[in-house]
């Protein structure tokens, strides 16, 4: 049975059964969400398995390289943001009280806790990688000295030996932890051995066990039962497990033995296919790795290890002067190592990204918990909607509201430009850079009278979350609505759709692009051809860069202390 049919029929069923309850657009959102997850993940597949035109556009990074991981995390952050917007935010708790979800959501939350631990362990592992990078850098630096002398070679050899023993010890420890490793560490008594001995958790903690625990109770929902939210929750759990699994496989992490090479993948869902592809590839590599007993699947580490061995070999047989042939060979290897070292510089942002991941998971967990608590608290139903407790956004919203009103009452214009300079407010908000890049989004709308325009602007200004909007514009004939600011695109789209059903996202661009090629419409062409329902937005611009920021600041609680009267008003 082709998986597409299955999914389609499933969604149709929901829409028939719950027609009165769930609005059309909500179902569409959920469907979109699944599609986007699949899209994002399939971008990560290496080109060989995929259509040719993809490779032509943008040569993707090597599987399991640092750059690949950065993209993987980006993709995950996007999924997470959309998941939050679609599934959790602004939803009535009653939705979660029903049969499968009341079990699924707590299970998902359990998984997130484990994921948080893994994040911490990974952060720790990245520190170890950075340590290796420094050692490699020593070797590279001394081998690049001209003219090369015996001293330089010796120095490089020493550093590389330390590096290699650190890698293998780290590995040995994974296999028979305890005395053997300690003894080995004593034998070498070199730099870095001590480091690998200190782990961030108690000895009994094991990454592979965590992964196992995360995936063990992850069972695909059966086709018939669920409400619309079951699949997204399951999907999200799944993506979470997958990402964690990939990271544990690649980055040195406490106690990885017994990490399964396979995850139970639900073949019947379309969104799972790219993941299955990735998983098979990584699983193969992992099996090979386990036999050889080497450390970490990370592309850079493996290459580093290989090069290290070669260069040490060369250094062992080093006599002065060097033969020209050999020198050239070594030079090549050194150059490669330089390149790897440069790539490994990316580890620092990767580490920050892991941290950001951590924060995101914490935040959506907190929000989900809020909803759950609310659910358990009340036996009689209250008409409460619980919104995330973000202070800044509420302030901004009221503020922009006021401005909207003023503009509209003062003059009758078709071209309206509201520019809200939030920073001028008495409460000093965080500078834009700490909250993510401002983006300029153009929505294609159909707003021909003043009233609907006003409604639309109200709606977009109500986008909730820790975001703000700098300006909203509706152009003369009411076909385009441009919003500039730091806000959740998906949320905005949802809000707008309530006003104007035909709203589509026309374009998204980051106002101050950090990485220039980020938002190029890479691949909308092949996707667009697929026959979809009539309301499909023209192009899947969903791969917007997540508001990821290197210097992450949390919820602005200083602002709260100053004057905001809303921080406890969660419900």
């Amino acid at each position, binding site marked *: 049975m082709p998986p597409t049919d299955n999914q389609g029929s499933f969604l149709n069923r929901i829409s028939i059964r719950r027609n009165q309850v769930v609005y059309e657009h909500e179902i569409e959102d959920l469907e979109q969400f699944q599609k986007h997850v699949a899209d994002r993940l399939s971008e990560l597949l290496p080109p060989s398995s995929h259509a040719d035109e993809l490779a032509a556009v943008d040569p993707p990074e090597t599987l399991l390289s640092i750059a690949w991981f950065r993209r993987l995390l980006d993709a995950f952050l996007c999924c997470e943001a959309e998941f939050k917007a679609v599934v959790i935010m602004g939803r009535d708790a009653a939705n979660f009280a029903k049969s499968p979800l009341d079990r699924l959501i707590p299970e998902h939350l359990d998984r997130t806790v484990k994921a948080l631990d893994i994040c911490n362990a990974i952060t720790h592992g990245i520190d170890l990688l950075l340590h290796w990078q420094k050692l490699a850098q020593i070797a590279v630096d001394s081998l690049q*000295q001209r003219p090369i*002398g015996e001293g330089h070679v010796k*120095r490089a050899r020493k550093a590389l030996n330390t590096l290699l023993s650190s890698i293998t010890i780290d590995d040995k420890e994974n296999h028979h932890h305890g005395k053997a490793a300690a003894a080995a560490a004593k034998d070498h008594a070199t730099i870095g051995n*001590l*480091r690998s001995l200190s782990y961030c*958790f108690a000895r009994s903690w094991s990454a592979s066990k965590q992964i196992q625990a995360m995936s063990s109770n992850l069972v695909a929902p059966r086709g018939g039962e669920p409400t619309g939210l079951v699949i997204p929750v399951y999907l999200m759990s799944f993506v979470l497990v997958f990402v964690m699994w990939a990271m544990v496989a690649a980055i040195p992490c406490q106690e990885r033995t017994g990490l399964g090479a396979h995850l139970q993948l639900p073949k019947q869902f379309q969104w799972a296919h790219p993941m299955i592809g990735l998983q098979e590839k990584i699983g193969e590599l992992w099996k090979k790795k386990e036999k050889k007993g080497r450390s970490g699947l990370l592309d850079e580490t493996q290459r580093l290890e290989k090069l290290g061995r070669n260069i040490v070999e060369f250094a062992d047989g080093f006599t*002065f002067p060097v033969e020209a042939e050999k020198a050239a060979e070594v030079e090549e290897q050194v150059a490669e190592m330089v390149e790897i070292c440069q790539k490994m510089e990316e580890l620092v942002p990767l580490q920050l990204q892991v941290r950001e991941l951590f924060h995101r998971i914490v935040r959506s967990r907190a929000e989900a918990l809020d909803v759950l608590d609310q659910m358990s608290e009340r036996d009689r139903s209250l008409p409460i909607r619980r919104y995330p407790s973000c202070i800044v956004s509420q302030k901004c919203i009221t503020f922009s509201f006021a401005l909207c009103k003023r503009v509209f009452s003062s003059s009758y214009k078709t071209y309206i430009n509201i520019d809200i300079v939030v920073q001028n407010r008495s409460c000093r908000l965080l500078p834009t850079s700490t909250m993510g890049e401002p983006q300029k989004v153009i929505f294609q709308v159909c707003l021909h009278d003043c009233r609907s325009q006003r409604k639309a602007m109200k709606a977009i200004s109500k986008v909730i979350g820790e975001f703000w909007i700098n300006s909203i514009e509706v152009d003369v004939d009411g076909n385009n609505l441009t919003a500039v600011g730091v806000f959740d695109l998906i949320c905005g789209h949802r809000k707008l759709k309530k006003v104007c059903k035909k709203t589509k996202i026309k374009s998204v661009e980051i106002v101050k692009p950090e990485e220039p090629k980020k938002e190029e419409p890479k691949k909308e062409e092949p996707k667009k051809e697929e026959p979809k329902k009539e309301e499909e937005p023209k192009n899947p611009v969903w791969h917007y860069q997540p508001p990821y920021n290197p210097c992450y600041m949390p919820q602005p609680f200083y602002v709260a202390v100053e004057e905001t009267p809303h921080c*406890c008003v969660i419900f």
Partner: protein
Amino acid sequence: MEPPENDSQTAQQIILRWDSTASQLPMIFQGDRQEIDRYLQAVDQIQTSIQSTTLSEDDGVDSQSTNAIQIAMARLEDEFRNILITNSTPIDTESLTESVSSAHLTPRTSTDNDEYTTRGEDEALPRDPSSSLLQRIGSSNKFVNCRSMNSIREQDLIPPESISDLRCIAQRMITAGYFRECVQVYGSVRKSVVDGSFKKLGVEKLSIGDIQRLEWEALNAKIVRWIRAAKVCIRVLFASEKRLCKQIFEDLGTAADDACFMETVKGPAIQLFNFAEAISISRRSPEKLFKILDLHDSLLDLLPDIDDVFDSKAAESISIQVTEILSRLAEAARGMLSEFENAVLREPSRVPVPGGTIHPLTRYVMNYISLISDYKQTLGELIVSKPATASRLSGDSNSPDIDFTDHEGQSPLALHLIWIISILHFNLEGKSKHYKDNSLAHLFIMNNVHYIVQKIKSSQELRDMIGDNYLRILTRIFRQAATNHQRATWIGVLHCLRDEGLHSTGSFSSGVSKSALRERFKSFNAIFDEVHRTQSLWLIPDEQLREELRISILEKLIPAYRSFLGRFRNHIESGRHPENYIKFSVEYLETAVLDLFEGYAVNQHSRRRSQ
């Protein structure tokens, strides 16, 4: 040209003599001072010769010199490590706990410090819920002390002469371009020392999952211990490490001291704060509030010192993390307060408390509130919004309606307290409906609201926060309940004692209808007996209130009965069997009323016989 050449050759010889790869040699720096100086001098000499030859492009000499310098550096690296390892005793925690805990104790005990340090650890942990209340109050006092007493105190981790040796070596290594090696060696050795200190301080490596699984009681103890450990870690351990880095690496270029410091401390610091982070994201429940506040307080208190210690660019992430944790803890505290409000509002028990006495919920909530007032300072900073009242859920009959305009000018926290009390009252009103006897329901409300008022009055802080305004409202509520109770009970009794209906109809003053009068006395006796029997089972725990209510009853009942008796006694006594109709004397009523609200059954017959 000759002399420098010779010099450099002798220098090379010195270095080759100490080649650590060639043979097992003792450490230079454990030996003769002169030898050390000679060696360092030799290294310097070769270093300068390399620098000069790079200009003159003399291949042969250069190769020799670089070789020599490599050997020297390997040697120096070993020396460096050796010095560090010989000086790697973990931090002296004994003296630290003493100094930190004596800081708390100075106001209480200043003589028996030594004894306290050993036992103090266990004593500070709350044993059971009843004592934990006192403990919490005690601990909040403690913080005031900490704030004034505690600050960064560095210790000497390594004796000064070793420091100067280390500095000599570090200087050579950095000049020769061996900066990275130097940092690596330093970091790895010192880090293991810090790990050792962590073990001594009892900083555990717990994962977030572990912490989520822990029982609250156990976690409670861990939080107390963590707070103490964190203080030592920041103010003594990390600060001393920082100073050590400064002493060894200051002015050696390329921010060596910061790099070394971070290399040493980053991992441990992350490990330390992981615990607080895990606490800050754990599930919220009201009973955790005060421990969370303790944690928040102490972190906030530590924050300036953390900023001080981690002030470099590389260390920024640590202080950012702490700020994040703080804001999350604050958020958690807010969440817990509103959770508490919800819990109070929705507390579902429906079984009425026998005797209309104080409901356990009332006691619990009031104790909680007085704890909140103990944490007034912290919570006052955290709670900045008015409570979410019924106005937002308009049309909702499941929560009380309160207008905060009456309480303008009060802090948000105070408004929250008022709100909690009013939802408590609301909930109690709901519970009172489950009493079958209306009069008992009123008594129940009276008792509970009176308890609330007394509780507020007993604590000056609470009283200041709640304000006289609201206190008056509460007083009015329980007075009203008392009146209602009396009305509900005694109106039937007094009804029997009225004049109307006794005079035979139609005729003017022909006299009193005897049968009606007998009926009246009979029903009075029956009702009073009933009231006496039931209501002596009821309970007013507060003595004064009980007394007041009895007096108020007597004031109404006795004059009415006396005058009724005075007017109609003759009619009954002139008939047959007067004792069947006039059962109670005025004096008996007076004593009988004193039986009311004591909470236990009285044997009426024995009492009557003794009359």
